[in-house]
């Protein structure tokens, strides 16, 4: 479903070339829940940005759901992102002027979904994250955990094939982090493919598949059963 082959990303300045990713290879199957770990500056977020088509890559091939991402122009990437991918960010990234309902509505508006259908989806997603009664609240009236649940609801509203989560529990305390993680697991059980970048090894172990990024390359794979590693492999 997601195939990256020899992906490289080079940041070029006048003085230096920085290889954020080099010869990065990855296959993700439908329905997987993958945790991406690695030290700071290793290229995790760059990988996620490229996976989410937020950044172009320098070399390689990237096929997402049968679409060759490298051949898309900016507008096509935006459409593809809108239809296939949901984002969850560490900082929630809710728009402060919009209430919860309106925040969740944002991607649906860009997709051109009619108001009635938008309403149905938003109410369903708010119900799913347990915030149906707070639809008219502004983000700053909610706790961090609640805001992240709204962000998840926003990501789910578009019924995406992929959820890309960048440190989704990074700004939350352990209780809220656990609640958010349980929500993501539930969403994965419902069929969504999730790629989650995290620093938290405990949370990472809850994902059925772990990958580690070091110096812009994939370092290893670990499959877990529960919290116990069952397989360790190098490369793809």
């Amino acid at each position, binding site marked *: 479903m997601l195939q990256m082959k020899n992906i490289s990303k080079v940041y070029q300045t006048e003085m230096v070339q920085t290889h954020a990713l080099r010869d990065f290879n990855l296959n993700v199957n439908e329905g997987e829940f993958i945790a991406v770990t690695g030290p700071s500056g290793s290229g995790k977020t760059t990988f996620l940005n490229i996976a989410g088509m937020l950044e172009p890559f320098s070399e390689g091939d990237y096929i997402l759901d049968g679409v060759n991402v490298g051949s898309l122009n900016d507008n096509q990437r935006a459409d593809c992102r809108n239809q296939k991918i949901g984002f969850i960010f560490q900082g929630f*990234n809710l728009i402060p*002027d919009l209430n919860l309902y309106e925040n969740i509505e944002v991607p649906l508006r*860009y997709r051109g979904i009619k108001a009635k259908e938008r309403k149905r989806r938003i109410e369903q997603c708010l119900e799913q994250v347990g915030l149906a009664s707070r639809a008219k609240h502004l983000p700053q009236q909610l706790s961090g955990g609640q805001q992240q649940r709204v962000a998840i609801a926003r990501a789910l509203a578009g019924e995406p094939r992929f959820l890309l989560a960048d440190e989704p529990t990074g700004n939350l305390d352990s209780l809220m982090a656990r609640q958010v993680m349980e929500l993501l697991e539930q969403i994965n059980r419902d069929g969504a493919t999730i790629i989650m970048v995290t620093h938290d090894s405990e949370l990472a172990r809850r994902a059925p598949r772990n990958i580690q990024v070091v110096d812009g390359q994939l370092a290893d794979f670990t499959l877990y059963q529960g919290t116990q590693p069952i397989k360790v492999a190098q490369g793809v």
Partner: protein
Amino acid sequence: MLVHYIDLSWRSFKRTPLVSFLMVLAIAIGIGITMTSLSVYHMMSADPIPHKSSQLFSVQLQIMDDGSTWWTSDNQPLQLTYQDAANLYQSQVGAQRLKMVRSGFSVYIDSDKVKPFSQSARLTTPEFFNMFDLEFLHGSKWSQQQEDNAAPVVVISEELNNKLFAGKNSVGQVIYLDDASYEVIGVTKNWPLTIKYYDLNNGAFNQPEQLFMPFSLLEAKQLGNWGNTNGWKHEDVRSFTAKLQSEMVWIQFWVELKTEQQKNDYENYLLAYMQEQQKLGRFNRKELAFGLRDVNQWMAYNNVVSEDNKILVALSFMFLAVCLANILGLLLAKFLRRAPEVGVRRALGANKRQIFMQHIIEVAMLGLLGGLLGIVFAQFGLLGVRQSYSYYESLATMDLSMLLSAPLIAISTCVIAGLYPAWLVCKTNPAIYLKSQ
């Protein structure tokens, strides 16, 4: 999406009320000043009689001998001699034609309620009313027979009728002009004229006369000329009769020519007339010349809208540009501060065009609000102009086209100013801001 973008713009204004207010104020001041000067310019240069301005022609004849010069661009006098005006009027060539001159009187009536006052008058032939579209409230114009017989009749304006007769139908009443009595035979409706195009000699923006009388009274009563009389060579003019026979120019002459053929015929007629006059010892020049200009050409020829007015309009637009430059800076700051939100929207599927449109709509709304407030400022500006110079009374106003233009100019100039900030924000790389929020 348009309604959604308008909603987002309104929220943006509420989020940053001070900056938004400053931008609207800057636009309003720029638009207010621009529309003040533009409205005056628009009224000055507007076609005063659009449905027939291309059919009415002012006639000039190059009467001067070779070697004499005039101050006009083509060296031709602006008016005709009395004898040429009389000859051209008698010729019957052209659909309608008229001759006229400005005069004036002391006006009074048999009433102690109205004090005598001085009033300018137009001595003209009866075609004046048809050719320049004057309508009658009461009575009518004088007949050709009354014209031929120099009948002591007068047509007065509605305003003068209100002043002398308190607005009652005054047809049949007698008024005194200097020492002679005249019968009122008609009252014209108000004639709202911003430019006194039919006689530009004594101020293009003066009000039309309020007394209209047969042209033949000029000779019959030897009335004085309140307009310009210009001579171009030495003549011994010691009597009124001598003035009528002189080569001095002081009569205005207009002809109505409805087709190109009529115009061609009239041009040929004028040439033939001058050739005929040469046989009588007049028009002593190698090349005969005449002027036949329609209303708009006549106004341009007489520089009704001076260079100063054009420069003033240009300066006001430059001031608007300075206001917009300030707005551009504020927009840049405002939009770039919003880059993180734009990053989120881009991540959620907005393409660059949608982001661009969102911001352009916001700028257009600023322009609309600034334009509406600018109209209010322009009204104050025009009020100031009217109070400073009385002859701007009818010029310093905003007609419907200017009222509609104000927000359009404001919106379009704001959109131009907002193009760069909107473009800059829409090409923001979303990835930069998503992590840092």
